[in-house]
């Protein structure tokens, strides 16, 4: 076990504690925790990748919407569609090769 809290250990604990917390917490806290976890995962794995850092900025915008009690479903849906498009572009590139 790590003596010092690494970003990985921090994320691991965050996910597990959020699982426990979400049982009793307001309904929007679930999406909030997952969006935060996604943001932390980007910092761990791809801190210098522009594509992922752009995704992280959008995740932060979504968090702010959740925290200000504003509808955030559309922004999440839009992000998901963009993520699907990225995969689709990768597949198209592979087919051309």
């Amino acid at each position, binding site marked *: 076990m790590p003596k010092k*809290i690494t970003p990985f250990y921090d994320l691991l604990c965050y996910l597990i*504690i959020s699982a426990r917390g979400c049982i009793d*917490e307001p309904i929007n806290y679930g999406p909030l925790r997952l969006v935060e976890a996604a943001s932390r995962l980007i910092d761990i794995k791809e801190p210098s990748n522009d594509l992922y850092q752009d995704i992280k900025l959008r995740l932060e915008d979504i968090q702010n919407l959740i*925290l200000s009690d504003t509808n955030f479903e559309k922004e999440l849906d839009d992000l998901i569609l963009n993520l699907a498009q990225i995969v689709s572009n990768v597949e198209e590139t592979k087919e051309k090769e």
Partner: protein
Amino acid sequence: MELTDAIHQRRSVRNYKGNILSRKNILQILEHAIWAPTASNMQAWKFIIIDEPELITQIKTFSQGLFGNPPAIIITCIDMIKARKKAGKAADLGLAYYDAALVSQNISLLALEFGLGTCLINSYHKGALKKLLKLPEEITPHLIISIGYPRTTPIKAPPRVPITEIVSWNIHEEGE
């Protein structure tokens, strides 16, 4: 600062500058905050103030509601033995919670006098926190308060419902 200005300017801050806080300022805030009312004057608060960066990191790991890197956090606890001595069963049934909340709101408002921002946090794992802080059984943590100099201006506060919808005079009536 006028009280109404403080009430309106208070926002939940989740992004802090790294500036170290003066312990003297934090103690001044608490000295005023504890003039909050308490049930049967139980005054059963215990405040754990953390300004060691490594311990803050550890607490943050087990506090899913704690965002940003605050230079300090205040844990508002209640000594339940002291609380029950004064308030009996009622301490467990709600009075301890009210007392913790009232003093914590005072802390949030007073912090503004020093240019500080705060965030009240109830999302954390109680057991993990007690272990990290070596809290005895009877000392119950209630609210974590992150405190520091805000790095960014928090997002605009959500609007409040019209007062006519939530106020009745003398007997309950449906709002307009």
